């Protein structure tokens, strides 16, 4: 047995480490299209102290550490590009605290979205968090680490903006509290009025440290939720429609989607609008506001509300299970999406690009955009499904996605959860002094370059 393995067992026990071919094979890949790479060990810590010791060991031995939630970011962010340790965080899954009055929760670094949702539903039915539509096994910390978006993002911003404090194990092994918890027992502010250090870890994709605890804003959970579905066949109208809708300031979540299959969706753009209320009157009032805001499009026959009866149950689910279904359209277990963050004005150009790429690469598409912060920007997903048993199709999807990212950068957008190649493209394009700043931060925080190496490689 190698010394490293022995040391790891000492830290996390026999059941916390594996280097058998089965675990190494599985943890070498994610469900997306990027090439796998084997780790040397898979380790599943249970405490911050264990994480700290693992990082110290990794520093000593100069081996990479790749924190992983459920690996569902799809863009290879948890593939150990340079081997080393994959750190499966999911055994750190406790909910540590809910402060109902201050509306925040504190959870461990591997706690899943699903478990928090169920916990709040049972113990704090008046509160909710901004759950993404990702599978419920995905983790809260990872979602913040990649600037995810959830059901409340249109109202309150990126899920990473909802972070109210962090406990992080730095790449050099120090355990560090960020925000109000660094001064006292409360987890209500990530930084303000101090310098906001949380930014050193959010969006960094696990390359600057490992989040072991995270505070998260909770929001009122109104008694009733409802949904309307507006459709139009004129893509040029979408930005205006979204502008009018966001002006209302009453919508929980807004998604714009289009897909060629099934046939009933062909040719139309669908805007799913969620709103909430504590009484039927509040709901009826909000519905009227939404309808009135879009009346002109109905009068011109360019758009209208479709009946949601048959889809309502599916649309109301959180997370929406049906979204994963896209993976099985080509009977093949996979899809991957590029999700640039962009301004709403560009919706028509992006929409045209999706269709163009799908035709060019002969792949199936679906697209859904989620509004962020009352329409300041949106996440525009360009998704292509593939059959995992068809390597040629997977390659075509990869090329289509690469081209989508190049397009997004050309349009002045920002690739979301970029894979390592896309990160390079971003760094090449970015303001040179900003890149320098990035280098200073990364090199100082992670002098050995052991944290999720291959990602945000500022020096190459």
């Amino acid at each position: 047995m190698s010394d490293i393995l022995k040391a790891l067992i000492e830290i996390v026990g026999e059941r916390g480490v594996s280097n058998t071919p089965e675990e190494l094979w599985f943890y070498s890949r994610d469900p997306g299209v990027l090439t796998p790479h084997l780790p040397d060990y898979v380790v599943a810590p249970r405490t911050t102290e264990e994480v700290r010791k693992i990082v110290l060991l990794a520093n000593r031995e100069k081996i990479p550490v790749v924190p992983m939630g459920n690996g569902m970011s799809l863009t290879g962010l948890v593939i150990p590009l340079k081997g080393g340790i994959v750190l499966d965080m999911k055994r750190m899954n406790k909910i540590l605290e809910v402060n109902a009055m201050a509306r925040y929760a504190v959870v461990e670094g591997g706690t899943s979205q699903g478990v928090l949702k169920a916990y709040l539903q049972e113990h704090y039915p008046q509160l909710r968090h901004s759950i993404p539509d990702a599978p419920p096994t995905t983790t809260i910390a990872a979602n913040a680490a990649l600037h995810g978006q959830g059901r409340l993002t249109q109202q309150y911003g990126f899920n990473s903006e909802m972070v109210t404090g962090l406990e992080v194990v730095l790449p050099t092994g120090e355990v560090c509290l960020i925000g109000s918890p660094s001064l006292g027992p409360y987890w209500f502010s990530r930084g303000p009025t101090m310098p906001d250090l949380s930014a050193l870890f959010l969006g960094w994709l696990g390359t600057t440290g490992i989040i072991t605890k995270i505070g998260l804003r909770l929001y009122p959970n109104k008694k009733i939720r409802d949904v309307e579905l507006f459709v139009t066949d004129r893509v040029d109208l979408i930005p205006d429609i979204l502008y009018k809708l966001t002006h209302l300031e009453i919508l929980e979540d807004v998604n714009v989607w289009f897909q060629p299959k099934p046939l009933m969706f062909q040719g139309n753009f669908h805007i799913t609008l969620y709103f909430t209320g504590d009484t039927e009157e509040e709901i009826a009032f909000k519905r009227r506001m939404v309808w009135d805001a879009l009346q002109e499009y109905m009068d011109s026959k360019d758009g209208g509300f479709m009946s949601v009866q048959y889809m309502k149950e599916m649309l109301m689910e959180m997370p929406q299970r049906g979204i994963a279904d896209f993976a099985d359209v080509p009977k093949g277990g996979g899809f991957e999406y590029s999700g640039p963050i962009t301004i709403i004005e560009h919706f028509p150009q992006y929409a045209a690009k999706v269709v163009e790429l799908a035709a060019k690469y002969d792949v199936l598409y679906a697209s859904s955009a989620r509004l962020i912060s009352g329409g300041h920007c949106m996440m525009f997903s360009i998704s292509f499904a593939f059959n995992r048993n068809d390597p040629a199709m997977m390659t075509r999807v990869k090329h289509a996605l690469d081209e989508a990212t190049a397009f997004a950068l050309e349009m002045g957008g920002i690739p979301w959860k970029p894979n390592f190649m896309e990160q390079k493209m971003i760094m090449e394009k970015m303001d040179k002094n900003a890149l320098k700043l990035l280098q200073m931060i990364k090199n100082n925080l992670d002098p050995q370059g052991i944290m999720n190496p291959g990602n945000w490689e500022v020096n190459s």
Partner: protein
Amino acid sequence: MTYAHTIEHAEIVHRCFRCGYCKFPSDYVDFNCPSYKAFGWDTYSPGGRMWLIRAWLNDEIKSSPHFAEILYSCVACDNCKNQCVFPKFRDFLPDIFQETKAELVNDGRIPPEVRDYFKAIAISGNPYKLPQSERGKWAEGTGLQPYTNQEYLFYAGCVGSYDEVGQKMARSVGKLLSDAGISAGILGSEEACDGSEVKVLGEMGLFTKLAQENIGQFKAKGIKKIITLDPHALNVFKKDYPKLGGEFRVFHYTEILAGLIKDKKIALTNYPVKVTYHDPCYLGRHNQIYGPPREILKAIPGVELVEMHRNALNAFCCGGGGGNFFTDILGTGEDSAGRVRVREARDTRARIVAVACPSCAKMLSDAVKTEGLEDTLEVLGIAEIIERARAK
């Protein structure tokens, strides 16, 4: 795509997205796949298994003791089949796991515990390696007679016949049936293993032999209706025997007892106690029988039935399925299914965990001891609870 190994549903294996919905119950409150809960590696989750099976079919990973452990730690609880988000293939998940185990059996690459189990069944006819002549002993004093041509056969199964906890359960059911005047007989020393666990562990040859012999015997004796003690037997009689020509009308004992209570054939007095009910996977998820055990408990004056958070379709397995009752591959660690389940039962503040399967009875009784809950929680079969409430 051609594979190095083959299983019947090979063409579906690559369709798993490894999204992990299958790890959860429908409200996501906790992990509901017992083997994932116990081991904590994604490889032990349903999706992990799917991906590994594909790698193994492709010869990217080889048969190994660890691969076998991953497969044999699945307790065949069917949670994944119900929770997977892909309706077009989710029904086949348990089949895929079983077919892979069958291939491992063919290759002779199975864990020693599994091999021992097959050996015991093949040689002694039961996993306890006890003499066949003792198989009917449990029934002494119940009033049940050997099967001649009564309306029903009461089938006790290996656990009901030989295990101490199982025998207690079998006796209480047998006594109620005979006291209520149900025309039922037993096979006693002529009864043979139903083969349910043999099948789920992948020994298809041995299973077919057992099933065919049982079918032959049932037919020769003119048996048309069967009451089973064990939901595993119920399941295999209902779903697999017909494919081999054995068509019988099969009931679980709780269905029969619920009818008797409804028809007031069993007199009950007050028995004030708080009870929670644990759904056996093979009765609940596998056969959608959720009502009768609950109807019985609710019919007992004084009994307050409280549900565990995870119940019915979302119930968490006791850990005894998939042959694990005998092979114990899940182990008895803190997150092993039985221990997790009794902690959940404890949280309801019930005094009794009602069970309807001899394997659950044994698994949960053991877990109560390991968790040190003997003073607060008692594990009892539905019929044993009725017995306590019977008007003398």
